[in-house]
């Protein structure tokens, strides 16, 4: 790219594109600016195409920066109160990778807060993203169970594509939040819960799936003198039962991968293992599979467009606060 071209671009309102120019503005259609990526390719090789996957959950924002490999990944708070921190996490990821926002060619957002992300080019649901992420980690996966903070999901894969999916219905049962509420009630941390559950002699039957009811039930069991480890073991069994039911709707097939925040709890994984009758696969960092999938999808999309010589629609991106759609 020539100096002149750079200069031309810096004048071209697209201030965020000040440094390495990646797209050439071609035309404008209904407000969205269309940029061609061809100019960019001349300059850089495929290797240098940097894409970000941003998974904005209700509590945590997960970001993966990748070219042909993962450059860096960050997990940070979405911001409980005003959910204003997602962009800060992005900044942190960039610092960690020694990049600036302008170096990132394409940003794909996913997760609960994916809708109004001023710095994303496109948004895709976490279902498609987790599926893609898991598929790259475990090509043999057929069934994915994702235990997120707000909801849990089951995804069925066929030939690497999402065949079918199920989500739990407007209820916290079988989600990360449920685990947290109960952990709070027991005054334990999540990892302590997993440890304790290993000591259980039996699983105390917890029948209630409603968070409020379950909390009450657990407290009353404690007062009846049931030991904590049995309760925790029962609790993991109850959650796995609830989520298992969801997956069963799609007919569980091997390999099964468990991901999402809930997959960090070894106690819960053990409960799933009991229920499934075999060992599920768990990614090294289950929180990141969504962001990873997003990055891969983003990359694939850019490359596909390049191949076809197609235009890519790109709005002006701003690394600003995310607003939530509610």
């Amino acid at each position: 790219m020539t100096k002149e071209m750079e200069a031309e671009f810096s004048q071209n309102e697209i201030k965020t594109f000040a440094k390495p120019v990646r797209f050439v503005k071609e035309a404008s259609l209904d407000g969205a600016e269309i940029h061609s990526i061809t100019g960019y390719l001349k300059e850089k090789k495929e290797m240098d195409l940097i894409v970000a996957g941003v998974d904005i959950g209700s509590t945590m924002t997960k970001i993966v920066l990748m070219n042909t490999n993962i450059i860096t990944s960050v997990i940070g708070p979405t911001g409980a109160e005003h959910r204003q921190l997602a962009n800060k996490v992005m900044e942190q990821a960039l610092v960690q990778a020694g990049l600036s926002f302008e170096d990132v060619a394409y940003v794909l957002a996913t997760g609960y807060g994916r809708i109004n992300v001023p710095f994303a080019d496109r948004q895709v649901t976490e279902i498609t993203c987790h599926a893609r992420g898991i598929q790259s980690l475990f090509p043999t996966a057929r069934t994915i169970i994702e235990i997120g903070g707000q909801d849990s999901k089951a995804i069925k894969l066929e030939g690497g594509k999402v065949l079918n999916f199920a989500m739990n219905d407007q209820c916290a049962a079988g989600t990360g939040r449920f685990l947290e509420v109960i952990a709070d009630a027991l005054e334990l941390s999540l990892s302590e819960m997993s440890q304790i559950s290993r000591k259980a002699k039996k699983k105390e039957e917890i029948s209630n799936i409603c968070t409020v009811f379950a909390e009450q039930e657990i407290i009353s069991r404690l007062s009846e003198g049931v030991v904590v480890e049995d309760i925790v073991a029962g609790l993991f069994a109850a959650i796995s039962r609830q989520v298992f039911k969801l997956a069963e709707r799609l007919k569980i097939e091997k390999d099964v991968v468990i991901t999402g925040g809930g997959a960090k709890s070894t106690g819960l994984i053990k409960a799933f293992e009991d229920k499934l009758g075999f060992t599920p696969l768990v990614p090294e960092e289950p929180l990141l599979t969504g962001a990873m999938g997003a990055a891969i999808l983003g990359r694939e999309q850019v490359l596909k467009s390049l191949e076809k010589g197609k235009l890519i629609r790109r709005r002006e991106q701003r690394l600003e606060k995310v607003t939530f759609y509610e």
Partner: protein
Amino acid sequence: MDKLLNKFASIAVNLYPRLIQWKKETGKKIIGCFPMYIPEEIIHASGMLPITLLGSDDELTLADQYVHPYICQLVRGNFGLSLKGELDFLDGIIFSDFCLTVQMISDIWIYHKPGGFYHQLILPKNMSASHTKRYILQQFNGLKKTLEKLSGRDISESSLKKSISIYNENRKLLHRLYQVRRANPCLFRARDMATVVAAGMLMFKEEHNMLLSELLYHASKAIPLSDGKVRLILSGYLCDMPELDVLDLLEELGAVVIDDDLYVGRRYFHTLTDESINPMEALVERFVEDVPCPTKLNQKRDWADYLSDLVKEAKADGLVSVALKYCEAHQYDFPVLDTSLSQGGVPNLMIESSHRGATGQLRTRIQAFLETLGGRDGN
């Protein structure tokens, strides 16, 4: 055309004040039909205006003081309106026992609003028993008799025939409109279609026919719009008005509804009444032969088969079925529908609606479904 569509919408959205005004001006009687399966033609032939009670979206209704909240929004909404007195302008209400919730609510309703004019139709569930048609005919005749009493006017065979032909005309016009939509789906928004049909449920069909003809005239002249969108069939909302913001959400996410199986849609007008036979018997036939319904037993066709034919005929990419939360009838059929459609190779999404509008969860589900259909790819 937009002006015309707005007109339909304003009729459908401003449910009752317009009717109250209309009643004052014309002095005519209005009969509320609790959805569904009320043979409106008989009411029409008596000179009274049949309207369909489409409930209300109010989450908080007075109904909650009298019935627990675990019943479908249509029944809760309607009952709430009634308790508020907003249905007091009606000269009568007709219920039909096609589902448990309506069966139960009718007695509760009458208990709370005694003194009104009510008629409870008891319709059979089994469509192929030897007594089915006799049974329905008796019921329809009973209805006819009470309507004659209420209107003070005999319903002659010829007036009934005339009403039937007006209703059929209405159905034919809607069929044509739906054809135009299939050919040029981006011409209408899904919410437009719903309000066009809903408006017809709230006015004399003669008048609706005129508006429809006008709409058709404009629509047939419109230039075809290219879409590149995911083509969907929307099914469900078994006897309720679909939530307009859910319809909008589908479109926002890159889909276009090319045909439907909604109550406020094709289910309402699909089946014509046979004009060549005795009119009362023709109405019975219509009830028996109507679109497959989860509240009916032993119908000639399966709902799933009907839907998958619809998908194929309309060359749709997939089907979204929305069941109202607590709608037993639909929910008992959900798993079977899902399996049969999937086996038949029809991609489908089954969602449950609790009338909370376009929530984040709903958005994720629909968007993920569209992603599996390959929507938005390469956008």
